[in-house]
């Protein structure tokens, strides 16, 4: 059981995490817009997350905290 928490107000929606996730379970939110006007990344399937931290490694804004 692992999960990521994205700091929505820090995320700039660059999608580098979406591109690097080996499980393809991160997507840019279609419903939310943050204070900067970007669509933040969000975890789409919490059960599939393996806690590899690839997303956090590629995140330029250190918006992702990984729990495992």
């Amino acid at each position, binding site marked *: *059981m*692992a*999960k990521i928490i994205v700091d929505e*107000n*820090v995320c*700039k*929606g*660059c*999608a*580098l995490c979406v*591109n*690097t996730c080996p499980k393809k379970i991160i997507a840019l939110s279609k419903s939310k817009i943050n204070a900067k006007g*970007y669509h933040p990344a969000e975890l789409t399937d919490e059960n599939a997350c393996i*806690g590899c*931290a*690839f997303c*956090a*490694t*590629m*995140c*330029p*804004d*250190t918006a*992702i*905290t*990984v*729990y*495992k």
Partner: protein
Amino acid sequence: MDVVFKKPHALTDAPLHYCPGCTHGIVHRLVAEVLDELGVEGKAVGVASVGCSVMSYNYFGCDMVQAPHGRAQAVATGLRRALPDGVIFTYQGDGDLAAIGTAETVHAATRGENITVIFINNAIYGMTGGQMAPTSLPNQITQTTPYGRDVNSAGFPVRVCEMLSTLDGVALAQRVTVDSVKNVKIAKAAIKKAFQNQIEGKGYSIVEVLSTCPTNWGLSPVDALQWLRDNMIPYYPLGVYKDADKRDNMKGDKE
């Protein structure tokens, strides 16, 4: 549930001003992680350059000095004299280190100043709006070379690591990139070695990080990383160009 990845202590909570997908943020985090792991945040002094990274003094938890354009390594030289036990590093872009600051860079290297230099090479002037930099690739389209960089009039790009690797004062000259998880880990190891070299008094260490500028390249962050792989890495091969710990290191060992 344990935290397996979080923001390093040496990175402040200030939100980065960089554009979405700019790899400056990744390199900032790597430097902060290395400061944490070596336990030197308290005695580290960074020198911010002029360029997009000018405001890096807001982001690093250690002491920072903001140097005039190109003079970061001259300022770092002074800091080294004033703080013999300090951990001194500069964080510079290509317009700062390889253009207006070339003289300071080459002479700090040849003096073997015991400092660490983090050099961000994104082949363009980012902050001023995308003009041609000395490191812009041949035929690269920029604001000032709308038909592509013409090497007949604008000359050829500067390969900084190759150039500095010929100098005896250099302890480490390595070129890395941050386009994938694997390369981020290699980049972190290089940055850590550059700081360790300084702590052990081995001399000048430079880590050149090939970076993206999605905004001025006119690409999405993901496409910019692919452009970097397709165009920059062939011209700027990754690898260790000089490592004083190893013999026979002048050939540019590839990883």
